[in-house]
């Protein structure tokens, strides 16, 4: 594929009241990458990613999905290529069974019943939902509901996934689940865009981070580059994961010794391990 799955070309967005929610932004998402979008609430990160499936339209500039201008393509068409998983699963769940929930997306795309069935089965396998198929989604605990919401978007078979705060409100098990899922999506060569405050998650899974503040992108780089950039960290008022902070102080002035995971730090402290 020569084109970028998502490309923002001098994108801006101004809300009806006149508030500039996004200043001129150009960004190219690479095929198969896991891209983290970070920033405080109000920094413009949600505004930016909502353009990726057409929920918001550019006030100026263009947003290209799979190489085509998204203008003129309604959200329900773009949903074929870009799956947006909302932060609160309750905003998406409405059926009486998990199975029905999984069927909703593919049905909306107008796929023939056999194809819908296949997609649902793939989602069930990927998310390990076999035991929960007949359950009422609202009877499930919150982490499982988040899983079902994600699975229902997966069942639509998009190339690009946008995950909005996937680990917020989750416990440690939920965190592990999301981490594994993102890694497996990457194995399937999907492109994953994660909007998150969870620096520990992004440190583990992200290829690149887009740091935002006051409606603009102030830095794009690998997690290591971004965490090492004091200016960016200060302006966005974000903190790197504890292990990164530890390695920063343990190995001052050695940017290659900036640990993103505990395992990394272990390997440097105990090479024999």
């Amino acid at each position, binding site marked *: 594929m020569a084109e970028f799955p998502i490309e923002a070309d001098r994108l801006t967005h101004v809300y009806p009241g006149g508030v500039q929610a996004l200043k001129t932004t150009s960004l190219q998402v690479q095929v198969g990458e896991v891209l983290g979008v970070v920033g405080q609430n109000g920094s413009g990160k949600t505004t930016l990613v909502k353009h990726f499936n057409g929920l918001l339209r550019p006030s100026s500039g263009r947003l290209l999905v799979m190489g085509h201008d998204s203008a003129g393509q309604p959200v329900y068409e773009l949903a074929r290529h870009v799956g947006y998983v909302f932060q609160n699963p309750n905003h998406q769940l409405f059926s009486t069974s998990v199975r029905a929930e999984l069927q909703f997306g593919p049905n909306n795309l107008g796929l023939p019943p056999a194809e819908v069935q296949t997609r649902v089965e793939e989602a069930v396998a990927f998310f390990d939902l076999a035991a929960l198929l007949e359950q009422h989604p609202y009877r499930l605990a919150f982490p499982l509901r988040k899983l079902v919401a994600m699975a229902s978007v997966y069942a639509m078979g998009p190339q690009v996934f946008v995950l909005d705060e996937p680990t917020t409100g989750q416990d440690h098990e939920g965190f592990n689940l999301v981490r594994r899922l993102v890694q497996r999506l990457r194995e399937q060569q999907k492109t994953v865009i994660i909007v998150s405050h969870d620096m520990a998650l992004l440190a583990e899974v992200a290829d690149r981070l887009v740091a935002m503040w006051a409606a603009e992108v102030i830095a794009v780089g690998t997690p290591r580059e971004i965490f090492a950039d004091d200016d960016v960290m200060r302006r966005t008022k974000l903190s790197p994961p*504890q292990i990164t902070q530890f390695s920063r102080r343990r190995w001052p002035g050695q940017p290659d010794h900036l640990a993103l995971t505990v*395992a990394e730090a272990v390997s440097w402290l105990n090479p024999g391990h």
Partner: protein
Amino acid sequence: MTEPIISIQNLSYQYALTEHPALNQVSLDIGAGEYVAVMGPCGAGKTSLSLSMNGIIPHMMAGGIEGKVFVAGRDTAETQVRELARVVGMVFDNPEFQLSQVTVREEIALGLENIGVPRDEMLRRIGEVLEIVGLSGFEERSPLNLSGGQQQRLAIAAALAMYPQVLVLDEPTSNLDPIGKEEVFAVAARLNRERGMTIVIVEHEVEVLATYADRILVMSEGRVVLNGPPRAVLSQVEALGRYHTRPPQVTALAYALEPNEHRLADYPVTLEQALAAIPS
């Protein structure tokens, strides 16, 4: 310990129409002025434990209760929630869900109106609690136009205005951005350190809790399975894993370097401790 401010004795609770008890034989004492953190996976019973401290369990929930909970000497089963409200303040996980009034001032006044505080005293308390949570000058603002962190601090202020002795916070930062999280943790710490407020906080941010908490409880399947000072509890890395929770990253690092569960010394649980303990 002098008379504990909260005493939970063999508490078991099962919600109606469920198969397993949410709380299973929990016994626990919390002393006045303690900062107690409660950790554990979803469904472990943390919220149920919190709700049993101000009487919502058993009075507002349908289910079967056994055992006793005493708060400032009162038996929660025999005392109305609205009575206990003067001793225990509660803050929930969704900042917006707790707010219903048109202005910040009225939100705080709501509780005071309910208990018949005279108007002059009301105004004084409103000013006082807004200052404590860092929202002075916000009296006329609409709660719905505040940031998440500000909303949650408002919820704390509203609870504080009742002059409770204990503040229970159930996952107060789970829906907040990093700035909001910091604000809430800072207020809780300030209340505890400067005013001796007893704090019971349910949270997942273990790195932060390790710094502030006097004591950490770990819950699993309705039971309190670990109970002690942060270093003692969080050093039990393998146990934490079994209970589906985790230690701070630096503790996991220290453990990986020296995985001896029978060490006599505890692992470091904060960044400073780790820098001191782990040599180059």
